[in-house]
């Protein structure tokens, strides 16, 4: 058994002539909560998709439990995905199924468990996220935070070795954010899984992560424990962690000369 459940080695990825990642190296040790942070559009979610085998790298490789993801055929990738659970940004619950059926979905599709056992397991998973009482509701009847918790129950339905969280705190109120934060850490420790969190919420992520990677301009620009990064003097990390408006990441998107554009000498097309 390798000490790191996921290893990203010299990975490059781009599409439509745009380079998103340039030779990224990361490791995700078993049982740890590791965060990938960076600004919007820095390719954090794409890294999760590369780990899940939904897209192929242009160079380098991603290894999950020792297997190179992009070298697997469809069955091989599906076999690897059975070791993973993923929480999507907006939950991605199946809107035609109830809360109960959403959590039961992977069990019914991927196992031969009897319905009575599925019932017990679903109620246990929903109890773990505090929503056993909401099992009969439909996704449209849930708040954003509840939907995220149901999606989390579904992600842990088959006790995966890795749980990937795509922006788990985005758009949540402070109380729900605290609940999700606590759930991620508790479930990680209780189930002995490895959690990979993609986020740009510094406070919440630093509270639960064991190790953090900062991604910018297609590269890992900083890494370390949350305490190390809080003390970091690197300009990008400092700007990001303290939420400064201007710095290495400019306030203005690249544009033509302001004066010339206002005076109409440059076409606004």
């Amino acid at each position: 058994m390798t000490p790191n459940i996921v290893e990203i080695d010299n990975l490059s990825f781009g599409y439509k002539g745009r380079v998103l990642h340039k030779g990224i190296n990361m490791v995700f040790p078993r049982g740890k909560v590791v965060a990938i942070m960076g600004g919007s559009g820095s390719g954090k979610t794409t890294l999760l998709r590369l780990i899940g085998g939904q897209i192929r790298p242009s160079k380098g490789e991603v290894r999950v439990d020792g297997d190179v993801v992009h070298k697997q055929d469809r069955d091989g990738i599906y076999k690897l995905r059975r070791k993973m659970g993923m929480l999507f940004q907006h939950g991605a619950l199946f809107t035609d199924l109830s809360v109960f059926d959403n959590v039961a979905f992977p069990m019914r599709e991927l196992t031969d468990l009897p319905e009575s056992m599925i019932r017990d397991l679903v109620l246990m998973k929903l109890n773990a996220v505090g929503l056993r009482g909401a099992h009969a509701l439909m996704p449209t009847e849930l708040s954003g935070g509840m939907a995220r918790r149901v999606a989390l129950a579904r992600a842990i339905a088959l006790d995966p070795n890795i749980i990937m969280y795509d922006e788990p705190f985005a758009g949540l109120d402070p109380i729900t954010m605290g609940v999700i934060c606590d759930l991620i850490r508790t479930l990680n420790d209780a189930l002995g899984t490895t959690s990979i969190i993609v986020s740009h919420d510094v406070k919440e992520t630093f509270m639960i992560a064991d190790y953090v990677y900062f991604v910018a301009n297609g590269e890992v620009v900083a890494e370390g424990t949350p305490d190390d990064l809080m003390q970091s003097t690197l300009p990008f990390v400092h700007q990001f962690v303290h939420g400064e408006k201007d710095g290495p990441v400019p306030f203005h998107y690249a544009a033509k000369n302001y004066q010339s554009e206002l005076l109409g000498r440059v076409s606004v097309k």
Partner: protein
Amino acid sequence: MIKSTLHISIIRTLRGIGSRMIERTWRLGAGARLFFLTLVYSGESFRRFNLTLREVYSTGVMSLLIIIVSAFFVGMVLALQGYNTLQKYGSSEAIGVLVALSLVRELGPVVTALLFAGRAGTAITAEIGLMKTTEQLSAMEMMAVNPIARVIAPRFWAGVISMPILASLFSMVGILGGYLVAVPLIGVDDGAFWSQMQANVDFRLDIVNGVIKSIVFGVACTMIALFEGYDAPPTAEGVSRATTRTVVISSLTVLALDFILTSFMLEV
């Protein structure tokens, strides 16, 4: 200067045509690939037939009302128009044959397919497009569940099963509508209406060919609706455009296929 502007404009037009051709060819290939994969991963639709049956309900049963009401009016109009022409030649008793043949051979399969594209086809495209937009298909993929086997194939077979049943119902209700106008309203002889129909409608040449047409239309309409949803850009505008394309492409495909099938069936 004028020459160079003209030159640039011609190049732009040619480039536009070329780019559109490449895009259309790519979409045709992607559609064919999805059709092939749907057939390959169809096993589950039959092993877990309840998945397909559920879709038969939402595509077929939910389309029943519009099919029955339309068929009734189409049959009544056919009888009125047919009687108006036939009486000039003194053969108004042939009204039953005219109504039955028009419905069974052409109007049943074609109008049902057009209504199906508008009612069920758009619903399928919007549903699949929204599943894609809200990452439900990605979530399924990440759970190691194949969305083509679990979502696409059951809907495809539901459409293929529903279409001939709906077309047959359309023809039956249309004939009933034609009967109500021709016999009680206009006063055509009851016995002549049914006996002429019985004598002149051939089971293999008319009814079976009509069913074959509706099966082909079922494959085309459902596959177009599924592909448009599956290929829709994951935005509100993308889903809306895909839904419109479903109706336009399905309608044109049905009419073109009808011409091709009819010419083969009549051995022209």
